[in-house]
């Protein structure tokens, strides 16, 4: 797996879950990986994991919803490694709340991280990619960005938005040799899904909910996804094998949704 050797990859939200899985995959692909997370400890922990595989890595704490924070992160990467070849916008937060109980503050926060964060990172990193005349941007959306999901109004709206932003980015930046695609993960076994279960049990007033176990019954391939399933596709999209794939949304969901 040498096709990404020497490439500099920035993964936002790389400290846990799918983001961490993506970082691990890129390290195995021999890329140099910048692990960004809002939690300093997680960013540094994953970065050390990658170094233990023999990869070059940098853990950077930054809040993707703040322009100044993203600018600082990107200039640090450029200072250290001189370029960014691949950007994976994976940072995201999920709030499980019925539509009618969603507060303005909650909606704003989900929007700021999940959609504005993708916009800021794309704009600031693309400036560097335009100078290089090439680049790959991969945005992590969700099946909740393709069809509605209960108690995920704010989250779903931002994930639909990520697909729209992906298409606009693909359209406007193609002329600079930059492609942009999205992946839409289905039911994935991550910390976020455990969190979701706890919250949903509260809302429904029941003791325990196991979304993963319940949801898996509807997944034709009969299992929940692992971060690795998503990481495999992200790695493909980041490689030259996908040079002509642009503006697409790739569902990775075990056959749960066809769209």
């Amino acid at each position, binding site marked *: *797996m*040498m*096709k990404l050797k020497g490439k500099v990859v920035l993964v936002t939200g790389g400290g846990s879950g799918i983001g961490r899985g993506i970082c691990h995959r890129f390290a195995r692909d021999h890329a140099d990986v910048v692990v960004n997370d809002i939690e300093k400890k997680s960013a540094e922990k994953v970065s050390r994991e990658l170094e233990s595989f023999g990869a070059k890595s940098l853990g950077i704490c930054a809040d993707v919803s703040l322009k100044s924070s993203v600018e600082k992160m990107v200039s640090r990467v450029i200072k250290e490694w001189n370029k960014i070849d691949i950007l994976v916008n994976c940072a995201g937060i999920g709030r499980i709340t019925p539509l009618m109980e969603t507060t303005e503050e909650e909606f704003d926060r989900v929007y700021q991280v999940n959609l504005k964060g993708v916009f800021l990172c794309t704009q600031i990193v693309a400036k560097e990619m335009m100078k290089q005349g090439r680049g790959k941007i991969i945005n992590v959306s969700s099946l909740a960005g393709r069809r509605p999901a209960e108690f995920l109004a704010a989250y779903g709206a931002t994930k639909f938005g990520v697909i729209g932003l992906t*298409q606009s980015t*693909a*359209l406007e930046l*193609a*002329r600079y040799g930059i*492609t942009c695609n999205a992946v839409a993960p289905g039911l994935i076994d991550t910390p976020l899904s455990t969190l979701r279960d706890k919250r949903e049990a509260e809302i429904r007033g029941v003791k325990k909910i196991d979304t993963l176990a319940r949801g898996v019954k509807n997944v*034709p*391939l*009969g*299992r929940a*996804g*692992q971060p690795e*399933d998503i990481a*495999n*596709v992200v*790695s*493909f999209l980041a*490689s030259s*094998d*996908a*040079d*002509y*794939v*642009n*503006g*697409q*949304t*790739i*569902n*990775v*969901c*075990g*056959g749960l949704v*066809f*769209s």
Partner: protein
Amino acid sequence: MDLNLRGKVAVVTGAGRGIGRAISLTFADEGALVVVNDKDSPVAEEVAKEIVLRGSRALAVRADVTKVDEVETLVNRTLDEFKKVDILVNNAGILYDAEGPLGRKLFQESLPEEWHKEIELILFGTLNCIKAVVGLMIKQRSGRIVNISSDMGRTNNGLRGVTTYSAGKGSVIALTRSIATEVAPYGITLNTVCPGFVRATRALLAEKQRETRPKEYEYYKNMEKAMEGTIPLGRVGMPEDIAKLTVFLASDAASWITGQTYSVNGGNVMI
């Protein structure tokens, strides 16, 4: 790509030229054993030879995928030679224009007897091949099927005279989803790849016949130029672009992907 396809047996239909040829060569580069099927024997042999020259194994089998008995022969010869079928790529298909690219008829001018040709090859050819291998794949509890459709099966994009071709390609997307749902419990996946505008067989033929059929050559050249203007990446696709995603979907890296439709088109159509 390093997809670990060593020892896997891949059957590719319509593999003698264009996209099917590129898919076959990419499989070979990934270490798979390739059955090169085509309706034309010489081109299939040619591709098989190319694969052997690259240091892999290949078997050329002539078969018309619209004929159930010929598809059976294709599968039997594969089993004789390689003992199993791990991967099937349904790529055989054509946009008929016997009288040249200018010969397409608008739907209201078309005759019912002209509708069958494309539907027969694209829809029934695909069904025949899947039917012939799916039982084996169920028994071995694994299998990968990738169907080559077209962006024309997802969106019309302002094209005229392509009704039955588009209908056939659209039906491939639908049958992929249905069969994917039925065979998922056996660890078999089916996905569809939709190429956009690709410089493949017909364009190369036009290039070759530049002297004898200048009108067609001009037509293709102008069409390509016009298309380039509508594709964000500013170039038409090459068969290799389609082959890479197809082979990825046939690998273990895509084991949690089924029933999906992915376009490879430089951003021309975004769905």
